[in-house]
């Protein structure tokens, strides 16, 4: 039987097909990038879905992707799947209709239509058997918590397919019985879902395999990653390619660090995801969060924060040439910066001793939290942080 597939990616669930407007404040996105476009344990989620379909024996897969705004986070997707077609968001449904026509004309008897969307591990053989047994024109898949945008369409029923696509997968011409799947489903509606998917994958609840080497049970490190010997990696966790974990850091409780990230000295990453090219400053504590594009989404507070302060969080350049230049610039300015810092430090100490002027804030030293407290030091803010760290000693 000739079965082909169409994947619609990056289309917001509430887009209005009649007006042709794709709403910009779409759910299922982080920092303006659809969650399915983001890498998870070394590979974009969209790529994982297409790979899964190919493994199930579907060779012809058309991926139609709504062109999102330019973001360095999309580079992985462009590199991993150069064949997918980018379509303007307002023309995606029309393009899907045309693609359906093309596939049917090329001989497809059944077409699997998926809006990504949710990450669903649906067994295709039982689904197709169910569709044929029911003699349905359209069969939709139902997960434990409701219907998902995963359909099987009969190639001979073009009108039904057109109706479905014109109503952006919200309506069918004829009510049919859905196929109930027991496979893993993650709706990927918020960054919290992305976090849950990463954790479930590390806990082997999904079929997603981290791209890397399992150096210890549950600890995956990809090629080119540089992990300092003083770093503690607690399983399960994943360190992506070319990432750098500096001394004293702790990566724990299902954290996933994608490629080209830097976790600076003494920072703790707990149950969090660092999207590609993220920099996490020294001495910080990132817990239950998704970090990327200088934004932090906290699962705990269900809030998103844009951080402008590059000493806390920043984004690294997305090309190796720019990264090299960045490193070179840091290297050249290292000594002058240390001199200036020591001069400012001396001045501050004098000010603190005479206690006359109001010091100017702005040179928060996160590294101070890891330093032990000495009696000689004045009670500066850095010392207070130190007291917190070593207060019980």
């Amino acid at each position, binding site marked *: 039987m000739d079965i082909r597939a169409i994947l619609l990616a990056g289309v917001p669930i509430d887009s209005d097909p009649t007006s042709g407007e794709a709403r910009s404040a779409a759910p299922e996105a982080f920092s303006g990038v659809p969650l399915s476009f983001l890498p998870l344990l070394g590979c974009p989620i969209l790529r994982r879905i297409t790979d899964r379909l190919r493994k199930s024996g579907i060779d012809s897969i058309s991926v139609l992707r709504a062109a999102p705004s330019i973001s360095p986070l999309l580079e992985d997707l462009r590199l991993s799947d150069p064949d997918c077609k980018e379509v303007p968001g307002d023309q995606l449904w029309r393009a899907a209709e045309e693609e359906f026509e093309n596939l049917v004309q090329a001989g497809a008897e059944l077409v699997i239509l998926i809006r990504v969307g949710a990450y669903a591990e649906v067994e295709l053989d039982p689904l197709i058997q169910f569709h044929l047994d029911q003699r349905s024109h359209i069969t939709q898949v139902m997960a434990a918590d409701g219907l998902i945008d995963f359909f099987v369409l009969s190639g001979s029923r073009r009108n039904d397919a057109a109706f479905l696509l014109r109503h952006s997968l919200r309506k069918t011409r004829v009510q049919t019985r859905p196929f109930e799947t027991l496979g893993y489903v993650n709706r990927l509606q918020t960054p919290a879902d992305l*976090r*849950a998917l990463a*954790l*479930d994958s590390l*806990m082997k*609840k999904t079929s997603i395999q981290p791209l890397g080497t399992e150096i210890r049970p549950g600890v995956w490190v990809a090629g080119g990653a540089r992990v300092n010997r003083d770093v503690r990696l607690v399983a399960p966790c994943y360190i992506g390619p070319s990432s750098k974990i500096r001394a004293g850091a702790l990566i724990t*409780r*299902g954290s996933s660090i994608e490629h080209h990230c830097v976790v600076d000295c003494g920072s703790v990453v707990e*149950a969090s995801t660092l999207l590609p090219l993220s920099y996490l400053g020294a*001495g*910080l*504590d*990132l*817990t*239950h*969060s998704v970090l990327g594009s200088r934004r*932090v989404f*906290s*699962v*705990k*507070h*269900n*809030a998103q*924060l*844009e*951080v*402008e*302060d590059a*000493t*806390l*969080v920043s984004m690294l350049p997305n090309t190796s040439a720019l990264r090299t230049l960045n490193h070179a610039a840091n290297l050249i300015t290292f000594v002058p910066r240390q001199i200036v810092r020591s001069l400012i430090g001396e001045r501050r100490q004098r000010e603190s001793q005479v206690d006359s002027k*109001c*010091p*100017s*804030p*702005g*040179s*928060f030293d*996160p590294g101070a*939290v890891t330093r032990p407290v000495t009696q000689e030091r004045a*009670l*500066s*803010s*850095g*010392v*207070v*942080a130190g007291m*917190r*760290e070593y207060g019980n000693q």
Partner: protein
Amino acid sequence: MEISRPVVVKRMPEKVNQREARKFLQDVQPFLKADRPQLVFDLSLVKQLDAAGVEMLLHCVSEVMKRDGDLKLASLSPQAAMVLELTRTDRLFEIYQTSTDAARSFSGFLPNAMRQVPAYRDASTPDRLAA
């Protein structure tokens, strides 16, 4: 019996960057220099708090501690709470849900008024991880 010392409540601005932090510090400087100051900072409006803002808070608390006073935080916005957690400074302050609770806490311990930590627990985290 000591009841007459005032509690000063100051609302922090929406954006606490280096410039705003300096301005805010100048505003509160007279209160910091008072004898045994009792201060409450209301962070309900704060949408952006950077390292300079955290530094300013730490400076304030150290000044207040020098004079045997206390500085408490109240009505933290999610953004402010996230930055304080990120920089590991949330543990340095008593944090209350409202400014009133924070002000009242100077005259007595209010265990129920402390900021409730959201009953968050990653549902998919297994027990051994959450332990």
